[in-house]
């Protein structure tokens, strides 16, 4: 059943999906930093307020994924920021996250060598988002 985009239910489904992934478990061995996703508001797409997703990731496991204000996500070790519609493109496989970062469509803050070292883990995490059925506010 589809869950509302970037809701608490979505966060739970996403966390479960990450923890089901053996690819992520292997690729993210040694990862010990928090990751924040900032979803910028797009009122014309029925996404009126920015949201922040805080991911507590440790050694191949998603310990917690929570949705809250953007300011919380901005405190994480790594922060990826994009407007709502860009994140939707990523989650629906219309935009590859690696390409998005190289093109500046997804803005990354954090230690570059570390994130590059874990490219495979971040690609698999993106794959996990595509496996969560989502109800998009601009498609109602």
């Amino acid at each position, binding site marked *: 059943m589809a869950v509302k985009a970037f809701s608490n239910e979505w966060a739970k489904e996403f966390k479960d999906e990450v923890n089901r992934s053996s690819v992520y478990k292997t690729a993210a061995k040694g990862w010990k930093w928090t990751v924040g996703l900032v979803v910028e508001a797009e009122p014309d797409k029925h996404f009126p307020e920015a949201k922040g997703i805080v991911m507590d990731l440790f050694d191949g496991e998603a310990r917690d994924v929570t949705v809250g204000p953007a300011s919380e996500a901005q405190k994480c070790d790594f922060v990826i920021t994009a407007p709502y519609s860009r994140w939707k493109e990523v989650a629906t496989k219309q935009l590859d996250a690696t390409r998005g970062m*190289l*093109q500046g469509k997804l*803005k*990354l803050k954090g*230690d*570059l*060598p570390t994130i590059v*070292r874990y490219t495979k883990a971040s690609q698999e995490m993106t794959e996990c988002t595509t496996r969560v059925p989502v109800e998009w506010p601009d498609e109602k």
Partner: protein
Amino acid sequence: MARRKVKPKLDVDSRAEVGYADDEPSAFASMLGGLIEANIRTRPEKARDFESLVARVGIFVTDIHEGVTLDFKGGNLVVHNGLKPRRTLTIRTDAETVMSLSNLKIGPFGLPVYYDAVGRGVATKLLRGKLKIDGLLPNVMTLNTVTRIFSVQ
């Protein structure tokens, strides 16, 4: 002519500098420049390679149609948006392979490792023509040095 912005000097080697030729470096230029800057700041062996390298290296990402030119000048690097003339080497490949190149392990004698999973993936792309390197044959040593500076491993 584009104005050159030079960032503050780095910790490991006071002469090392990474700057940008364009007023608004592209996201790709900022990412590569930032990656190299972080590498040479934290890894003395990479800083030594950076000090010695004089070459103009182009990298063109085929699936986003964006390129940069890395102009290494023996302890200084100027990153240009786009491919500029008189390049020593030009690497043309997709975004995923650019990430793989920066994940190549460095083995004995400072040579990139092509026998592990990442290295085999890169070698396969080279053999299948999905990774093209113009100017490779006369500049193998330069490519190895660039790879060492660029690698996060």
